């Protein structure tokens, strides 16, 4: 009796390979096409899909036997220019139900470098659709990937794996949402036009913020950053005048003193009593006097506060990994008999 076909996985990820190697293995358009040509030309391989992100390069395949995995690894080495001997120890091979288990975990963000990140599901979907369009996949992988998307969605809905932001800037944006709701009509003042200031602007803009003003000790830098953000530029000397008209202040200068004082904040709040003020101090030494938090309806968060929230969120996500993995195991075990039957029909 002939052996049934096998479900294969061959991959390199952040768990096994350093960044320099992962860079070389990245499958851009040309490399992906070259690898696909080799895989299609191999008579043992019937179906396949390629997943390439900054953290992983993976081949999912249906082949006549598990031995085809070695050939797939060889093709990957060829198109990436890596020596097969170098790639060997970094490559992980899996077969059958372990492949489903792995793919479910990857799509759900359980295997990501930043646990619970949501982008990976979109990347897996893109990889599958690219394979589907080019007829690389067949009934087995189509079924496995469809179940993968359902499982990933189920895990995100039924666990806290994706909850809470884990970067300082996005934590600040989340908090702003809890103070103001929508950020579209919120006026944001970013003090400091350095790298942190620009990242903060991007984070707020990604949540719909439009009214952005940039202040910097060097007006030309403020104007440059404001032009990038589509906002306005002001000089630092204008801070006391502008403060009453803004809702959020995110400050990240390298000044050795606090340039936003408690008195300035108190004055600003007297002129805008109907709305809260959110102060985000991203600088060290601090840009905002801690006493500003004493003013009514002012919420002041500094670097330590934001870092603690990010750490708490990450810890909460990690605590959910076990729940996510249980769901993955249950669902992959439930799916495997159907896939096994399909693999038998393949011959």
């Amino acid at each position: 009796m002939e052996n049934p076909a096998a479900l294969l996985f061959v991959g390199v990820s952040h768990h096994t390979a350093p960044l320099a190697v992962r860079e070389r293995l990245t499958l851009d358009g040309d490399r992906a096409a070259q690898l696909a040509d080799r895989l299609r030309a191999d008579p043992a391989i019937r179906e396949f899909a390629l997943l390439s992100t900054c953290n992983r390069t993976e081949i999912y395949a249906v082949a006549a036997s598990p031995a085809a995995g070695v050939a797939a690894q060889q093709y990957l080495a060829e198109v990436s220019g890596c020596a097969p001997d170098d790639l060997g120890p970094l490559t992980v091979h899996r077969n059958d139900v372990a492949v489903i288990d792995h793919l479910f975990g990857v799509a759900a963000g359980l295997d990501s470098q930043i646990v619970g990140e949501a982008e990976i599901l979109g990347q897996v979907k893109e990889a599958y659709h690219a394979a589907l369009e080019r007829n690389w996949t067949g009934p087995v992988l189509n079924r496995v990937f469809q179940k993968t998307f359902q499982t990933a969605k189920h895990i995100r809905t039924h666990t806290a794996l994706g909850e809470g932001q884990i970067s300082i800037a996005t934590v600040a944006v989340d908090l702003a949402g809890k103070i103001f709701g929508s950020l579209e009509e919120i006026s944001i003042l970013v003090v400091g036009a350095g790298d942190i200031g620009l990242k903060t602007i991007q984070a707020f803009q990604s949540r719909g913020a439009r009214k952005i003003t940039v202040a910097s000790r060097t007006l030309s830098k403020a104007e440059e950053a404001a032009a990038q953000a589509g906002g306005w530029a002001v000089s630092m000397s204008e801070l006391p005048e502008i403060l009453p008209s803004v809702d959020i202040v995110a400050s990240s200068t390298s000044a050795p003193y606090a340039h936003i004082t408690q008195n300035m904040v108190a004055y600003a709040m007297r002129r805008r009593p109907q709305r809260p003020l959110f102060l985000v101090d991203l600088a060290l030494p601090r840009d905002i006097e801690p006493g500003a938090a004493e003013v009514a309806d002012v919420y002041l968060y500094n670097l330590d506060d934001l870092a603690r929230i990010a750490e708490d969120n990450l810890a909460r996500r990690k605590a959910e990994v076990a729940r996510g993995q249980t769901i993955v195991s249950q669902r992959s075990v439930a799916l495997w008999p159907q896939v096994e039957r399909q693999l038998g029909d393949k011959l």
Partner: protein
Amino acid sequence: MLARWLGAGQICAMNNLVPPDRALLWLGALFYLGGFAGGCLALFRRGETDNSRVTLNLLLAAGLVFQMAGLYLRGRAVGGCPLANKFEIVQFVAWSAMVLYFVVGPAFRISLLGLFAAGYAGCLATISLVIPAWDAGRGVRIFGNNPWIELHAALAVFSYGVFGLLSLTSLMHLLQAWNLRHKRLDGLFWFLPSVVQLDQINLRLLMAGVGLLTISVAVGAAWWLRDLHSVDLPKIAVTLAVWLVYLVTLVLRLQRRLVSVRFAWVCLVLFVLALVSLGPVNDSRHPAGTPAATR
């Protein structure tokens, strides 16, 4: 349909050990409390999901139907609005808050309002049921045949329902502001709306409540002027005081002199005082007509 609900009340009445109207009101209270308990459980286990929200709304809708059926039986027995004693007034306040939640709540789209409304209505309804003294003089017809006085009373009590909901959103505002200020970002924090949204909702609810109470006071005043001895002084004083304090609060809020956390505190404290004021208001009312049996 209503007959079926009333039939359920008859079954629950257990051979007249509990009057059917009270049995239905008990069922309403238990559904509210069940919704509250289930909502809390879902919140602590996973967070507010679409499924838990649907379950909560179904339980609250069932509670509302049972409560409405119980109040309907009482109203039918006296041929008017069931507002004869403290028990009925408190039941009506709980009912109106729940009606408002279903009618107005979706427009506000505030998460957790259903859970808070369930706890609030469930507690009010249960407390009124477990204190027998509040239901003394049941079945008394207090409005005579004057629909205007009945409208006055119904609007006044309904405005208390609005103020009740306002006290809930004020409580949510205070919780959220406290969480933000003390950087306690666990528990309910991520499920509560933003402080600015809650402040805007509070203002809208206050405007609605003051509007209803103003109409009620105007209708009552028009009839009182025709017969100055028809209402006791304590009732007039307390009613006007409640109306005036809420009106002043609204004016201060519109002038932006009372905002945010202080505004929420005032709304919360005022509602507690308004609830307490129901006692003297109720005690100083003159029953009109003869007692009517509800069984």
